[in-house]
């Protein structure tokens, strides 16, 4: 349990650094660390497959693309736009109101019952595959169609203008 609290602390710590870092590239690197702590969370929950996939897909591919884009478009360090004090004040007030709402909402909650899995080895590849392709086959296929349509849309947007050559 103490491992969980330590990793949870690290997750929150790095995610705060993501939004407070001045340099966008540093932000992305902190985001990489945040995702790495998520991977550790998955391992703690014995979900090895999810952990490795999170590692490959998010840390290894998506964030590399983020970093790639930032390096291409944002070469100077101090390119972050300066915000006026009025905007900062509004943000503080808004954030404070949000905090109060959240605290009030959470106070009404009871502490949730911990979910006990029927099968603690659910996260292993074999079990996960069996469940995904038997019990949840339709949602799995539907979500893959969703991804496919998103991909087609992206390709369509990227090649909006027909080539003249």
């Amino acid at each position, binding site marked *: 349990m103490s491992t969980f609290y330590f990793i949870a602390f690290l997750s929150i710590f790095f995610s705060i650094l993501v939004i407070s870092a001045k340099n966008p590239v540093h932000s992305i690197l902190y985001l990489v660390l945040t995702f790495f702590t998520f991977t550790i969370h998955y391992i703690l929950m014995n979900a090895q497959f999810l952990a490795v996939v999170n*590692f490959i897909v998010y840390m290894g591919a998506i964030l590399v693309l983020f970093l790639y884009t930032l390096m291409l478009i944002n*070469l100077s360090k101090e390119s972050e736009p300066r915000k006026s004090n009025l905007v900062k004040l509004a943000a503080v007030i808004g954030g404070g109101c949000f905090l109060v709402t959240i605290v009030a909402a959470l106070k009404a909650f009871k502490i949730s019952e911990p979910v006990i899995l029927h099968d603690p080895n659910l996260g292993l*590849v074999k079990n996960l595959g069996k469940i995904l392709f038997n019990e949840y086959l339709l949602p799995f296929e539907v979500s893959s169609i969703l991804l496919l349509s998103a991909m087609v849309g992206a390709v369509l947007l990227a090649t909006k203008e027909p080539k003249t050559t």
Partner: protein
Amino acid sequence: MGLADIIIKFILVVIIFAISLLIALYSTYAERKVAAFFQDRLGPNRAGPFGIFQPFADGGKMFLKEEIIPTSASKFLFIAGPSLSIFTACIGSAVIPWGQQLTIGGHVIDLQVADINVGVLYILGVVSLGVYGVMIGGWASNNKYSLLGAIRAASQNISYEISMGLAIIALLMVTGTLSLKEIAVQQHGFWSHGWFTWNVFKQPLGFLLFIVCAFAETNRTPFDLPECETELIGGYHTEYSSMKLGFYLFSEYINMFISGAVMATLYFGGYNFPGMHYFSGNMLAILGVVVLFAKIFFFIFFFMWVRWTIPRFRYDQLMDLGWKILIPLAIANIVITGIFITFFK
């Protein structure tokens, strides 16, 4: 897990680490000798007989050279880049089964550091992490050429990871497991049930795709665009000097060693060899290790052979090859494998 097991694992880790560093060290020597052979030269022959101490001389030079950190560089990331690069190169060896079980004084020793049941995916994860070292180093140098090298490395790695993953999917359909140990066990011997047991004979196209992607992922010629010296001076390590440059160069050789080990395990039978049923016990385990290393050395030689034979691609050719040829081929390979498994098994 008792204390004895932990000590054994620790010793195993140290040995594997030392061996990978030693092989990487002598790969630099072998590369120069191979290059010399291909170009009808002598190669390094001054330090010791046949220049055998050349890697140590080079290493000493790297350590003793002046270390320069550019004033406009981001200092922490400038140091983190090469460290990350060599770190990711070294951790890949953890899941590779180096041999069968060895019995010493009643202790049964698995010649594999960690038999995790997602071994193949772990390798993919390590490969995908490898690009961060290059990207961070290239960006932190605050130099146009370094940045261009870093950006090339990123897009190249992302592109070739996809076809590498797809090639592995077809392999996994054949083996039915993600554990490297089980994959190695399945390829026992050389011939059974009327066909070769090694996966390269079951997945020839998959192996071809995998080896091309391995060249791209290790930044070896013909795909060494991130450090292409005719266009980018030195690419992502333009600003680096002394041992930090050494780490970048060294991690390339460790990556070569690890990818050779992965290819040998996934496709070329790992520690299995024809006629292995004549041996048993420790003899078999030791012979297995020797055979695996022979395969790895062949792959390392193959990497060098290609480097000194084939010229570098142009960048758009590289991307065309990755996206328009390798990925469709890999998908076709998956479909063919699926059809084959459905109708013939």
